[in-house]
């Protein structure tokens, strides 16, 4: 089934309201949800699903999801934050998750972009080169 263009545009409008100085604001998003609850639009569930998708994408674009093997110091986290904020020209927050399958090194995901400096990633690339 094709997505309704009106719903998409409406959800985009809601996302725009949820941004403060170009960044996603949880307070504004809560206010938007409260308003929607009181004044449910046509196809309310579809609007909410579309809004959720846009919010998830927006959050992913401003979050550096860092996977690491071993310890990761707070200074390294700060460096990652500063580096990616400068690179993308927006404030990037950092979430961390330990992933020992990386063997050593880091893998950072910001939106669609993945930066892999892990040993597992390099070994995978080596495997691909040899095959």
């Amino acid at each position, binding site marked *: 089934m094709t997505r309704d263009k009106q719903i998409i545009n409406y959800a985009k409008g809601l996302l725009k309201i949820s941004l403060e100085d170009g960044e996603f604001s949880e307070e504004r998003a809560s206010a938007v949800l409260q308003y929607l609850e009181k004044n449910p639009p046509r196809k309310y569930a579809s609007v909410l699903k579309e809004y959720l998708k846009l919010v998830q994408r927006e959050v992913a674009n401003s979050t550096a999801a860092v996977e690491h093997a071993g310890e990761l110091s707070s200074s390294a986290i700060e460096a990652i934050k500063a580096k990616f904020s400068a690179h993308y020209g927006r404030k990037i927050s950092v979430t961390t998750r330990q992933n020992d399958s990386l063997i050593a090194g880091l893998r950072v995901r910001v939106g669609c972009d993945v930066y892999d400096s892990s040993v597992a990633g*390099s070994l995978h690339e080596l495997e691909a080169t040899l095959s």
Partner: protein
Amino acid sequence: MSSVIEQIEQQIANLQTKTVQSNTGKIVTIADGVAKIDGLSEAMYNEMIEFPGGSIGIALNLEEDSVGVVILGESTHLKAGDEAKCTGQLLSVPVGKGLLGRVVNALGQPVDGKGPVESTESYPVEKIAPGIIERKSVDQPLATGIMAIDSMIPIGRGQRELIIGDRGTGKTTIAIDTIINQAKINDVGLASGDENFRPVYSVYVVIGQKNSNVARTLGVLEAADALKYTILVSAPAADAAADQYLAPYSGVAMAEWFMSNGMDALIVYDDLSKHAAAYRQMSLILKRPSGREAYPGDVFYLHSRLLERSARVNEDNGNGSITALPIIETLAGDLSAYIPTNVISITDGQIFLETDLFNQGIRPAVSVGLSVSRVGSAAQIKATKQVAGKIKLELAQFRELAAFAQFGSDLDAKTKAQLDRGARIVELFKQPAFNPLPIEEQVAVLWGIQNNYYDDIDASKIVAAANSIREFFTTRKEALLTSIRTKAKIDDELQAELKKAYDEWKPSFV
């Protein structure tokens, strides 16, 4: 072995510092070889997309928040949620002489079980055709070995000549004959040691055909020893629509290598009707708007950008060429259908094959009235022009008068003579499949009809007479045939020798 160790060591050395950046997305839906992917924000049009398990796709629909990717090859192992990755590369295929004699799929991977393809270079599958400045007019012949075509609808190197007709009218046979003839000419030319000889390498692209047909074609080429000059790009009916869509572009990329390296190539697309159908299938799954006969709006561009890549380039650009023989299958002889009219308008002429002629035993079933070569006699050697200049007109007149043939006794002498001559020409042009004739033999046979040597032979015996004279020339007048081939024109000396030869042959033919 040492090179592999060095490669591993180098990779290990890189491990410490290397950060690999990639743009990724996730499969949202996947059906019929087409995946919709969320993400891939940096994907380019026609970029290769990598999937788990080494599968490759091409990004064809770039939408606001998703990308439509057509998956090449096997896609059954992919599922929603799988990660897809941009490669930053356009799809390319291996090229070079290492592919000659091989059967490859649309990605240039071997499918003939003869091991890996020896190739160090690759060319992009999609490429802009040579521009006006790089081109040169078509003036060198490309002999098909089929007398009816070489004498009446000559094809030149760099030309695009459509072969069109209903199913089972001998379209593929004409294309295969042409490939076999190139191989024969190459053998003779390369053996002669002539420095100016330019061999023609062939690329035969199979689109949406039965695997049994592909095997038969392969067998014929092998039997004629033509495979060594031929690359067979196979995307049979069992392959995904994406592979069938891609195969002609892969084939022409392989042919472009020959052209850009100053060589001549011949490419056969068998057939573009099925190619259009495969593209229609892909487009409908990609939810692109459909137009006439449910084909997408850019179906003309699909074929025009493919056929424009066939060209004759000038000396500054290597002097190479790609000659294209696209094939179109019509339904009930309908030339005015969508795809046939499109391709007719793109090409430099067409060879129309008629079911009625085929069923009457006139093979190749070339319809003289509807067939044309827009390059014309510029691509014909002078000897053929001299002996076949009036034949097309005579045959066209015969076809018009043929309706009156049944009232033969009531016709005036001139009309009857025209009918008799036409009937003899028709018989003379009958030629068995996979038996192309060298141009010098064609000239020798046609000289006979031009000089009325067949007039007193019964029409039913013309085929036997033509066989007899060819045998006579090849066994007893080989020097004369060589002279025709090398001089490429009939001067007074050759004229006298031909007359002498015919006078010598005539009493021996019973």
